[in-house]
């Protein structure tokens, strides 16, 4: 009897365990199912390669580039398996056995057609703009890319999503390439409904690892609250860009929350071309007055990491040690040294714009922190377009900006040049130091990624030492999963996001 009862108890326990496991089936990957995902930014230019939309086909896992990047932000093989520099040119050897979604093979001619198209448009993508880009077939399995000057980072440039390669038939119409069923990636783009949605089907003939889901419906949902609610309602299994305020809400609904760094900095730019910020003591006083950990943790509620440097944790050469807290005593001392004391309070204009909602909030907090140190900041929140000409002309005091420090491929030379050299095209701080320019100039002859990254680090260090603006925070990216697994965060934003997602349960 006892044995039978024990047997029943064991059976009940086993049944319960099986049921519990079945209930927990949500956590077990179930490859081959379908997913619906909510992405933050809809395509604005019909997935055009010459616009920022171009990278979308890459992040969806539809189009592929000659190279990709590894975790160390170094070039890695993708459609090209190897490459070598030959003077002004680089020779890329193509992967064998790759087939476009329309069934045609990847050939050097196809690569030439695709890249000639995108390099020849009215406004070519930043990755190749102004480089004197030219491409030609080089044997049966390679292409040769030439630039006006020897380019040490061409393999890295080729990882830009704007340089995706579609089947030759896509370019036959003469206009923008047809992106349906013409990539080489793990997903085939079969249907697009404008800026609303897109349908992806797994490419079972893919040359690499198969995608985790058999089919994905992509919904473009701009409203962050709507994305969060869609996850909670089970309408979507993956969503990106959930605001900090709603993370607890989606967590409580059983969603997995992933937070990862963003290659973006919010700098408080200071006009060095005229008083008071032509005096490094005043710039340092501003730096000391601002409590960056408080801005990130309290003002933005953890939606950003405090910035110690121009570059943050998103890149291997970024600073990860936290910046110091505010030191108002030092700030006041430095201001006094610069002849700004209680009898001569410093009044400055602080401009910013509302396109990024965190900026006006940060401006108000910065205003309060500066007031503690004896600096009166008058805030103007206006249209960026209207402010930009004056800011670029050096007719401003303080400008709270938001800046991505990587442009389409993970190399910082472009930002370091355009924003901080004496002749930079976006040199808002109007910083000019021949030593800095010489350091950045060395990047032109440095191909080794490790050496380049060391130069990036040194350049950022010079900017910090010279108090070239105050790097306030690095925003944090968020993604949530409920009913899916396998999300691989990509702070560099050049690798596909969707192929790894796998339905669960």
């Amino acid at each position, binding site marked *: 009897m006892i044995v039978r009862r024990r047997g029943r108890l064991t059976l009940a326990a086993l049944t319960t365990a099986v049921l519990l496991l079945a209930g927990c089936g949500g956590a077990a990957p179930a490859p081959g199912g379908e997913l619906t995902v*909510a992405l933050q930014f*809809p*395509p*604005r*230019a*019909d997935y*055009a390669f*010459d*616009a*920022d*939309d171009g990278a979308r086909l890459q992040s969806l896992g539809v189009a592929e580039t000659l190279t990709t990047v590894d975790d160390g932000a170094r070039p890695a093989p993708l459609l090209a398996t190897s490459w070598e520099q030959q003077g002004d040119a680089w020779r890329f050897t193509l992967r064998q056995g790759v087939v476009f979604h329309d069934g045609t093979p990847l050939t050097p001619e196809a690569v030439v057609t695709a890249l000639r198209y995108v390099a020849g448009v*009215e*406004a070519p*993508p*930043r990755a190749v*703009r102004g480089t004197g880009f030219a491409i030609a077939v080089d044997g049966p399995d390679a292409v040769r890319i030439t630039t006006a000057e020897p380019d040490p980072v061409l393999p890295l440039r080729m990882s830009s999503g704007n340089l995706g390669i579609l089947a030759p038939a896509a370019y036959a119409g003469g206009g*923008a390439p047809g992106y349906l069923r013409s990539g080489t990636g793990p997903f085939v783009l079969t249907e697009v*409904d*404008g*800026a*609303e949605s897109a349908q992806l089907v797994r490419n079972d003939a893919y040359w690499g690892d198969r995608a985790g889901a058999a089919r994905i419906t992509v*919904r*473009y*949902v*701009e*409203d962050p*609250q*709507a994305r969060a*609610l*869609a996850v*909670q*309602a*089970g*309408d979507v299994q993956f969503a990106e860009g959930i605001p900090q305020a709603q993370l607890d809400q989606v967590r409580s*609904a059983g969603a997995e929350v992933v937070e990862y760094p963003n290659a973006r900095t919010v700098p408080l730019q200071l006009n060095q071309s005229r008083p008071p910020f032509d005096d490094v003591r005043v710039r340092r006083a501003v730096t000391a007055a601002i409590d960056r950990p408080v801005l990130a943790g309290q003002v933005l509620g953890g939606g950003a990491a405090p910035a110690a440097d121009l570059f943050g944790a998103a890149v291997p050469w970024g600073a990860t040690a936290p910046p110091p807290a505010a030191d108002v005593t030092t700030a006041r001392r430095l201001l006094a040294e610069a002849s700004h004391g209680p009898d001569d309070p410093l009044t400055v204009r602080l401009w910013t714009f509302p*396109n990024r909602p965190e900026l006006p909030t940060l401006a108000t907090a910065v205003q309060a922190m500066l007031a503690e140190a004896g600096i009166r900041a008058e805030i103007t929140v206006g*249209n960026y*377009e*209207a402010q930009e000409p004056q800011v670029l002309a050096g007719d401003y005091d303080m400008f709270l900006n938001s*800046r*991505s420090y990587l*442009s389409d491929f993970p190399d910082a030379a472009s930002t370091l040049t*355009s924003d901080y050299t004496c002749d930079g*095209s*976006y040199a808002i701080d109007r910083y000019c130091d021949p030593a800095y320019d010489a350091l950045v100039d060395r990047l032109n002859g440095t191909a080794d990624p490790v050496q380049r990254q060391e130069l990036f680090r040194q350049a950022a260090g010079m900017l910090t030492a010279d108090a070239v603006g105050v790097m306030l925070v690095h925003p944090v990216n968020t993604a949530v999963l409920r009913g899916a697994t396998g999300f691989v965060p990509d702070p560099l934003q050049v690798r596909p996001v969707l192929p790894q997602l796998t339905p669960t349960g």
Partner: protein
Amino acid sequence: MTGLLLRRLLVVPPVLLAASVLVFALPRLAGVDPARAVLRARSADAVPDPAVEERIRASFGLDASPVEQYLRWLAAVLRGDLGNGYVSGVPVLAQVGTAATVSGLLTVLALVVAAAVGVPAGAYAARRPGGPLDRVLGAGTVAGVAVPEFVLAPWLVLLFAVGLGALPALGWGGPEHLVLPVLTLAAYPGALVAQLVRAETVTVLARPHVRAARAKGLGEHAVLWRHGVRLATTSVTALAGLLVAGLLGGSVVVEVVFAVPGLGRLLQQAVPAQDLPVIQAGTLLVVTVAVLAGVLVEIVATALDPVQRSARGAR
């Protein structure tokens, strides 16, 4: 009546012409440089390249004088050619047409729901002013008028999509996708209609001819609907024109929250991208619909109201 119709319709062309001037000029007066907007919208964080900017300016015909650009644009619009979006390159007519169909459906359904709920609610509340039903409906209509769409929409999603799992939280396609956006859009006009019908009906029910009707033995139900509500519908009809314009404008929030591909959402995407052809076409369409709805409502209200009809006829 025909004279009234003609007089009202004759006003429409000059109003629309004036609107077209404003629609064309306002973005430019606000400092939007279309060529730079094209570049920036396609490539965020771009530092404008003057040479590329000039090429874009020429290729879009933006190097002509503003008057020439306006006349060229107006002539094209009158031909039904709205051009291609600066940003997307997609024909504007197709974009605006699809979006307007979606918004139009939402607007009509919201008005139907508002009338279907608001008229009987207001009428029954008017039967016993101050009674329990009146007080409950009064509180409900105050909430309907006061709670903004951006608050109501998430609450409806939390209740019906997250809580009950009965309806989708967002998207567009099947009839189930209509329910929550229509309920959100109908809340304000429904409450307004209920308040108006209640107030009008209370007034009418106190008039001598209604008391006489009651004295002759006419049932309460018949008194309410034949005498009270019938007159109140004239005011509701007059309100409808304003509601149509309000719904077209107010649908932005609803379309964004529910990811519905309507006109409001199209404009919400086009404005930050400064996609002028889309902004101009969308705005002109909204203005046209609002003007035509206003005229139509005035004519219908006149036709329904014998007092107004005879007064206008006597002019």
